[in-house]
């Protein structure tokens, strides 16, 4: 269809067909609204990069029962492995869970590849009745009397009117900035992820990672893997490839003058990682930003005629134990859709009419989670947690297990020696202990 017929007015215009946008469009279309979903890529997912360990299965299952039977998923996650690294050693926490809902429907998590998954998800929104227009860059919103009344697409007759605009345009969040809902970001608030997909025979993957059938594993790494850059790394098993990447805080990449792709090479060469990737062949290299600072990056979430959701609203939980953005993108996309549906029913689109977004975000556990974890990002990005403690743990284990004829050390004297060696002060340890508790326990 020719969507850009200038006279047409849409109920809802969604900008960006990532997980936030496609989910929002799907729900609005199901409610009978006239929905336009705009995406600048050649197809949805063409511009998008994640690990991707997708933990939104239960959410998506509400919308599309047994979605994994038809969607392009790689493997379901039956194991997670969190490793603390020094340059020579790795100490890992291996989480293998066969509890209900992990290895049975709806499955706790799936590994997916974004160009395929996003394309499928946008097609579901289309099937529900939304109009998808790809290769369409939105440059600005249309405003009348200070109200947002549509968007300007970069093309002939690109002014398209809509009653509610939902900005799901991702981490750079240009629309929210244009409207004044978001400020410019600082380099310490964002991390750069560089990723490779490495082809590997499924039989080798299953052997090497002790998986059977559709099982998959997600590895996360902290510590010396990024040298002195604040960040981490990941490795996920796809069906016939591995997804692997390094994440580094932009400000610390600058300070340390580190090139991200060199960190990626170092990661693959680490003695704990090299055997896992042996014989794999590079299929695609990619890069993307991650909003790391959660709550403190939250924009004003709505204004007259417009809502912001997903990464564009900073709803990405990136804090050590977690790198979850896709699920929160969907949850906030749903909350925005619910708000837009209410607004269209009542035919009121002012900021006041859209203020129900807060309630919907709370009901969908988005704002509650981000408020709860508001202290985690800053702490995780502290040098001691990023680099020092993983190194201390790894080096401590190395000394604990070393058998070279010298007297065996008990743990307490070893701990004292490590504190001396790494110049750790009891006060600092206590403070950091408190920070862990505050960030993760309550």
């Amino acid at each position: 269809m020719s969507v850009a017929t200038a006279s047409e007015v849409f109920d809802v215009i969604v900008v960006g067909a990532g997980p936030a946008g496609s989910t929002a469009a799907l729900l609005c279309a199901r409610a009978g609204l006239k929905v336009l979903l705009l995406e600048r890529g050649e197809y949805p997912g063409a511009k998008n990069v994640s690990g991707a360990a997708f933990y939104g299965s239960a959410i998506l299952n509400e919308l599309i029962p047994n979605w994994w039977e038809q969607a392009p998923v790689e493997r379901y996650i039956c194991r997670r492995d969190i490793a603390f690294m020094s340059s020579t050693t790795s100490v890992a926490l291996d989480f293998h869970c066969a509890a209900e809902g992990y290895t049975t429907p709806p499955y706790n998590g799936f590994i997916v590849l974004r160009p395929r998954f996003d394309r499928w998800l946008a097609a579901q929104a289309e099937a529900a009745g939304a109009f998808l227009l790809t290769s369409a860059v939105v440059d600005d919103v249309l405003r009348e009397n200070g109200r947002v009344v549509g968007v300007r697409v970069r093309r002939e007759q690109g002014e398209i009117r809509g009653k509610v605009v939902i900005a799901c345009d991702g981490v750079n969040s240009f629309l929210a900035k244009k409207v004044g809902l978001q400020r410019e970001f600082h380099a310490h608030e964002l991390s750069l992820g560089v990723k490779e997909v490495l082809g590997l025979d499924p039989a080798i993957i299953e052997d090497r990672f002790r998986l059977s059938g559709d099982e998959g594993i997600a590895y996360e790494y902290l510590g010396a893997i990024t040298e002195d850059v604040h960040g981490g790394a990941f490795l996920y098993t796809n069906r016939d490839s591995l997804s692997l990447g390094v994440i580094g805080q932009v400000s610390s990449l600058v300070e340390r003058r580190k090139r991200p792709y060199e960190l990626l090479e170092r990661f693959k060469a680490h003695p704990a990682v090299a055997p896992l990737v042996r014989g794999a062949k590079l299929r695609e290299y990619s890069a993307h930003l991650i909003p790391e600072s959660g709550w403190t990056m939250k924009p004003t979430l709505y204004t007259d005629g417009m809502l912001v959701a997903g990464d564009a609203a900073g709803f990405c939980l990136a804090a050590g134990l977690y790198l979850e953005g896709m699920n929160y993108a969907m949850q906030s996309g749903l909350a925005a859709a619910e708000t837009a549906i209410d607004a269209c029913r009542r035919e009121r689109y002012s900021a006041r009419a859209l203020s129900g977004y807060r309630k919907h975000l709370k009901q969908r556990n988005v704002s509650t989670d981000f408020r709860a974890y508001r202290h985690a990002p800053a702490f995780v990005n502290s040098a001691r947690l990023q680099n020092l403690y993983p190194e201390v743990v790894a080096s401590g284990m190395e000394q604990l297990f070393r058998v070279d004829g010298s007297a065996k050390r008990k743990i307490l004297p070893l701990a004292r020696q490590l504190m001396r060696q790494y110049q750790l002060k009891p006060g600092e340890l206590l403070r950091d202990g408190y920070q862990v508790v505050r960030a993760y326990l309550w």
Partner: protein
Amino acid sequence: MVMTTHEEKMRTVRFRVAATPHIVVNSDICRASCSIHACVYVCPANLFVPLDDGGILFNYEQCFECGTCYIACNQEGAIRWSYPDGGYGVTFRES
């Protein structure tokens, strides 16, 4: 091959190059007032080449459109940044 050079990495990425650049670097500003050259290190596509005179040589054609240079550069006006026209630029197939 598991270990790859940056050139080998870039050869795996598909770009549909637009006729006009979506990022423009004002090398005069780099030359006049930048001492850190952050862009040179952070750009995952390695598109910023430092020149002897302190300026920057930049080519937009193999850009991931990630926004990192724009965030890292602290000189007002040095980088003019936007997205390429719809359908142009990077197209990921696997990531």
